[in-house]
């Protein structure tokens, strides 16, 4: 039987507001433990929450970017449970009346747009950070000591919930990359998975292709990179298919993804079902955004990544357009092309060399980059690489690099190519047996011999001729 994954994503985005969700404590990272706290975010008796207006506006902004409806009335509720990371014994979160509903993420693909539904985007406060010391599992049960840092407690968090419209691990990854870029461009969050400012849970089930049933789903947590998310989902999909195919039953469970081993570990089943006893937060009044506010925010929306991918696709191709836009590189690309560089060459240099060198695209002069792109085949490889790595320098000038010339003289390069061929009999035989990909190996060896001064295009020609001969 052929199986189809059915995947829904829950994405937590930590907003980078100056202050926390319900108090005026700074919401930033890096301060000493428990220094960014006050009676409100520590849940002292009598302390009351006050809604952070910026957080509400940013949530609406994200909702609008995702094509959501913005209801005229959103209500904060209390989600009640006991845990030391929750100083009040409840989390304030929007529940049945969230700020944003019914939107979608449009993912441009070669086969047209894939539309992934957004069920809701709601605002809530983050829990504090806990560290469990001792014991085996790093969990609270069995720990010798549990430490709590309330700095993170009460920072604003938007939870975006997609419909179960995602059909593969790879698609999940692409949806998330696009969503992340949208969030970053809105300027509402750093959305960095390593730092935990973007956190993703995936709900996964499988069904026979052609069926529209929804089978029991499992939840995967603790995946802290896009690649781990893809691997985690892939592993879970395979596991579920195997379970169904041997006549078993998938149970509703929560799994942690262990990136080091690529494995999923089921969390210990709870003795009883969660009952969060939600009820409307009586300490707050409903959030009622005016249509003026919503329209003002809508008018502030920049051109969004999905639209730019479509626009760039026409000038370039889908794959490169996706890479440039989701990497936040398309503006640099446009400017570089505008400065005279060829489109595909500019895209390749930016997506491969610039990103590979870890240079901040925002710090780069497109004018200078364009000169490098134009000259790159003519100048020594070493000069090009060095120029790229120095691009971020505010005083960078391409002149000294493009003034250099790579060695293109076949008389000079011929003996070096011969030496390389002589020293690599195995590769020569493989190449002659059809492994043409080894061409790069020979070129690379020559570049090494010449310390990057040879013109790779000329070398490549020489190698090809000599090996054919």
């Amino acid at each position, binding site marked *: 039987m052929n199986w189809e994954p059915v995947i829904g994503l829950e994405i937590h985005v930590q907003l980078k507001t100056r202050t926390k969700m319900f108090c005026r404590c700074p919401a930033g990272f890096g301060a000493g433990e428990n220094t960014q706290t006050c009676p409100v975010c520590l849940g*002292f*008796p*009598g302390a009351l929450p006050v809604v952070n207006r910026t957080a509400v506006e940013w949530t609406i902004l994200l909702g609008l970017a995702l094509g959501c409806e913005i209801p005229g009335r959103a209500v904060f509720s209390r989600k*009640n449970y006991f845990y030391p990371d929750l100083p009040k014994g*409840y989390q304030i979160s929007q529940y049945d009346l969230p700020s944003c509903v019914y939107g979608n993420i449009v993912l441009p693909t070669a086969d047209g747009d894939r539309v992934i539904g957004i069920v809701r985007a709601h605002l809530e406060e983050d829990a504090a950070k806990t560290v469990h010391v001792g014991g085996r599992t790093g969990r609270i049960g069995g720990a010798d000591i549990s430490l709590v840092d309330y700095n993170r407690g009460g920072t604003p968090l938007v939870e975006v919930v997609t419909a179960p419209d995602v059909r593969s691990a790879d698609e999940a990854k692409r949806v998330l990359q696009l969503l992340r870029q949208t969030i970053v461009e809105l300027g509402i969050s750093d959305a960095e998975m390593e730092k935990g400012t973007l956190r993703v849970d995936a709900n996964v089930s499988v069904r026979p292709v052609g069926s529209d049933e929804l089978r029991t789903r499992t939840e995967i947590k603790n995946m802290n990179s896009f690649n781990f998310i893809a691997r985690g989902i892939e592993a879970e999909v395979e596991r579920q298919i195997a379970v169904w195919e041997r006549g078993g039953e998938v149970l509703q469970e929560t799994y942690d993804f262990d990136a080091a081993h690529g494995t999923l570990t089921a969390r210990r089943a709870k003795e009883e079902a969660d009952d969060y006893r939600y009820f409307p937060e*009586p300490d707050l009044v409903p959030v009622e955004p005016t249509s003026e506010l919503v329209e003002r925010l809508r008018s502030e929306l920049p051109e969004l990544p999905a639209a730019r991918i479509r626009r760039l696709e026409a000038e370039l191709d889908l794959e490169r357009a996706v890479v440039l836009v989701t990497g936040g590189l398309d503006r640099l690309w446009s400017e570089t092309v505008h400065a005279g560089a060829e489109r595909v060459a500019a895209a390749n240099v930016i997506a491969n060399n610039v990103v590979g060198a870890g240079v901040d695209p925002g710090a780069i002069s497109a004018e200078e980059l364009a000169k490098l792109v134009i000259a790159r085949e003519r100048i020594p490889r070493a000069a090009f690489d060095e120029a790229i790595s120095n691009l971020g320098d505010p005083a960078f000038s391409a002149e000294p690099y493009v003034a250099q010339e790579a060695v293109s003289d076949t008389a000079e390069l011929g003996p070096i190519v011969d030496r390389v061929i002589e020293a690599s009999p195995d590769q020569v035989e493989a190449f002659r047996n059809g492994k043409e990909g080894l061409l790069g190996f020979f070129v690379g060896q020559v570049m090494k011999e010449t310390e990057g001064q040879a013109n790779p295009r000329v070398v490549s020609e020489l190698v090809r001729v000599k090996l054919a001969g």
Partner: protein
Amino acid sequence: MAPAVDTLRLTAEEAIGLVERGELSPAELHGAYLEAIAERNDELHAYLRTVGAGEGASIPIAIKDVISTRGVETTAGSKILSGYVPVFDSTVAARCKEAGLTLLGKTNTDEFAMGSSTENSAWGPSRNPWDPMLVPGGSGGGTAAAVSAGMAPWGLGSDTGGSIKQPSALCGNVGLRPTYGTVSRYGVVAFASSLDQVGPVAKTVRDVALLYSIIAGRDPRDSTTVELPELVLLPKDERLDGLRIGVPSQVASLDAIEPGVRAAFEHALRLAEELGAVVDECDLPLSYRYGMPCYYLIAPAEASSNLARYDGVRYGPRTDAATYREMVERTRDQGFGAEPKRRIMIGTYALSAGYYDAFYGQAQKVRTLLIREHREALTHVDVIASPTSPTVAFPIGDKAADPLAMYACDVLTIPSNLAGLPGLSIPCGLSEGLPVGLQLVGPQFGENTLFRAGHALEQAIGFDTVPLRWRE
């Protein structure tokens, strides 16, 4: 040395006059109250702790122990907060300070303001100044007893189901439960957030109005507060011409009201008519029928959530155990008394999945009906009048073992509390030698109307606030 003043009779307004005219220094005034406390608090246990007069002492005030006072222990009458010293002032405490008031001490309360007699205080009951064998009412029995016994010119209470109005009635004071949203709850240990409201207790309506003007008004720290639509006016009129007073027909048929209480109430109504008011019947059938059950779902539900923060992790005593869960369970088991535990259980149940719609959700719908019913009634009358409490003060221990009998103390105060409306209780006479309270309920933000009516009636009634046993 004889006390400089007789605090038993002194009103806050008079005390302010003495200080302003330089006839008494603030320190002398403060000292006089501390002397009264030294003389009577052992018997009455109105204060849990007192504060010495420091620099800049001025007009003193008693503050209920559910209201946070920076640097002064605030326990809400509970063991689970013993030793807890707030690092911040509640907004009402801060406003009192800014107005030049000095804290005399923290007054006793039923644990987390849950009760009608102060018998639920973890620190032992307060006693009624009129007869120490009797309760002072609750939960704000401490403030009421302190004011009645001349141990404070005035004080702050908090009222969820009747905790300002009922003790004021039982101790012969004037007490105001303000319109919900006019007084900040910031720093007030929460019982039921959608009902809790801080208000003044004093000997006269004018004192109550003055203290209300100090504490009321929007607070950016409490999102549920609003700006007062009009200034607070200190009442002067002694006539009630044109005032329409409505008496709910349900009150007339309420058997729980003692005959002596009913007689004093009806006497007050006759006086009101003599002052020019028109007394008429009004109708609040749903409010009296469903008010109590509605309240005893909403208040415990909110309380069950509000009391979740007392886990021994960050403040208050902790009972250590091997695991986090066990530590929290033991801390809460030992820290909470029977009444908070009872309400936490009722409230948790009412909010549970599968029961929410039948209980909490339904109660909220009923509450909407009660709000509507009161609004409708108040289009025909200016104020709604009833006794504040169906009974006078009752003996300590009488109802302590019967929660339902205790809950019934608030049958007359709960309906308008659920509707968020202001209610003023003034003493309107004696029954069997004990004070009877008259409750006047006004429309939203109708405090000035209540003050005017209350003041005129107060003058006509001429109630002597000094307990009989201390009169010369």
